[in-house]
């Protein structure tokens, strides 16, 4: 399949959107659960803003329409795999049409924590039809870049246990009971997710980033890639301090997690 140009629709144009009038940059951070996406986005945002760019950051299930409903549905015990896929897709469409597209029209840099790829990977990990979910999410805009933070399951396990201290029901795919306890289910489910994301890497032109390194190293790596994206240069931007301090972005991370 031919690669899509940035800001072209994958297969299904959204009614009322002319991609010629979108001037911003769309940057996606993808990767499995607990891989460190939120930390990177918070640092990238601060850096880009210091460079003088207007930044929108957005992520899964944060939309005004469906975010709350998804959260409530996950608290119950009846949410099925198809329903979950479509609920997330509804949220994605809402954020795409009401947040991302308007920001791109206004020339923003949009940083998004996960994209249609996570929705597709979760659906496929649950045995849903690949062609079906491809078409359902076909109204997505091809991003300028997708950075795939990749780690293996062992690394994810240690991040979860050392960082958060406990396994999460949904991150472990316990709705599908991949194993008879949270650890076994986590390992199987995350392995499936990683496999699904790996399989998309070529088709969607992911830049694979080794997430097993310290956050600052990953950040510098991402900075290097993003600098090549030719985001409109603002050379005369006055600056006081160009460095980004990880401790200064901690509260951003916390806020994003709360959402």
């Amino acid at each position, binding site marked *: 399949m031919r690669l899509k140009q940035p800001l072209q629709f994958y297969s299904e144009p959204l009614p009322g959107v002319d991609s010629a009038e979108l001037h911003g940059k769309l940057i996606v951070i993808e990767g499995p659960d607990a891989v460190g996406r939120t930390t990177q986005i918070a640092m990238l945002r601060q850096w880009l803003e210091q460079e003088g760019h207007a930044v929108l950051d957005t992520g899964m299930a944060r939309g005004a329409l469906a975010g709350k409903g998804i959260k409530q549905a996950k608290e119950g015990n009846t949410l099925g795999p198809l329903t979950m896929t479509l609920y997330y897709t509804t949220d994605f469409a809402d954020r795409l*049409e009401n947040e991302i597209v308007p920001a791109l029209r206004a020339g923003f840099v949009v940083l998004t924590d996960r994209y249609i790829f996570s929705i597709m990977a979760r659906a496929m990990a649950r045995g849903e039809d690949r062609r079906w979910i491809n078409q359902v999410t076909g109204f997505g805009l091809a991003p300028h870049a997708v950075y795939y933070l990749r780690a293996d399951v062992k690394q994810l396990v240690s991040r979860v246990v050392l960082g958060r201290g406990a396994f999460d029901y949904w991150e472990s795919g316990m709705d599908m009971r991949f194993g008879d306890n949270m650890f076994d289910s986590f390992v199987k489910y995350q392995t499936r997710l990683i496999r699904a994301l790996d399989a998309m890497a070529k088709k969607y032109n992911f830049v694979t980033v080794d997430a097993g390194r310290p956050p600052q190293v990953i950040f510098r790596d991402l900075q290097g890639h993003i600098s090549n994206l030719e985001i409109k240069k603002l050379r005369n931007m006055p600056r006081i301090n160009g460095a980004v301090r990880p401790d200064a972005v901690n509260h951003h991370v916390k806020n994003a997690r709360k959402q």
Partner: protein
Amino acid sequence: MPLLKPNRLKGKLLVVEGIDGSGKSTQISLLSHWLRSQGYAVAFSEWNSSPLVQETTRRGKKKEMFTPTTFSLIHATDFADRMERYILPLMKSGAIVCADRYAFTAFARDVARGVSRRWVRNLYSFATRPNLSFYFRVPLDVAIGRILGGRDAIKYYEAGMDLGLSRDVEESFRIFQGRILDEYEAMAREVGFHIIDATLSIEEQQKQMRAIVVGELGVSLKNGVLRFPPSEIHAIEAAASVL
């Protein structure tokens, strides 16, 4: 592209379709009562009624947050939940499921809103194909007369006000329902609708529906569909006549 999955389960799926004011809800309700009185296990599922999704839909409508795409997707989410949690397990058990509106409502309504025909058909391709789909054909003026006579106000999305077809609600409703009607008519063959003339009397329409059910499903209803033993049916009928 295959449209919907064939029903290989023991139970049966009967659906009614038509524009607002076509009288389909009255008819499916009468039909389900009749089937129940015959001793069948009958379940009922209404469009837009999933407890997981309802609140989101309500908020979106109240605050007028929907686009054609999100309107389509939230209804598909609602449908998926009813399918996964209610319709499929009951059909597996051998029940007759009666649905007031089905995927065809989305095919007509979402396309009238500007969503692509192909995309919305793929979206619902996980749905089971009904054993019988009744389409209540009614002229636009008759349907509009029934709606205006029966209720106080037409709602925003019902009238397609989000499309900016007209500032006048009644005018917008007329244009929008006209488009939906065209979509229903255009899909009638593709979908294999049993067409009921919805200008006939309620009794006559019901008679036709029952004849179609008996004619089309007669033999297969004896096969695997959950039913009370004949000896108990009299008791059910007696109870029903009291009600």
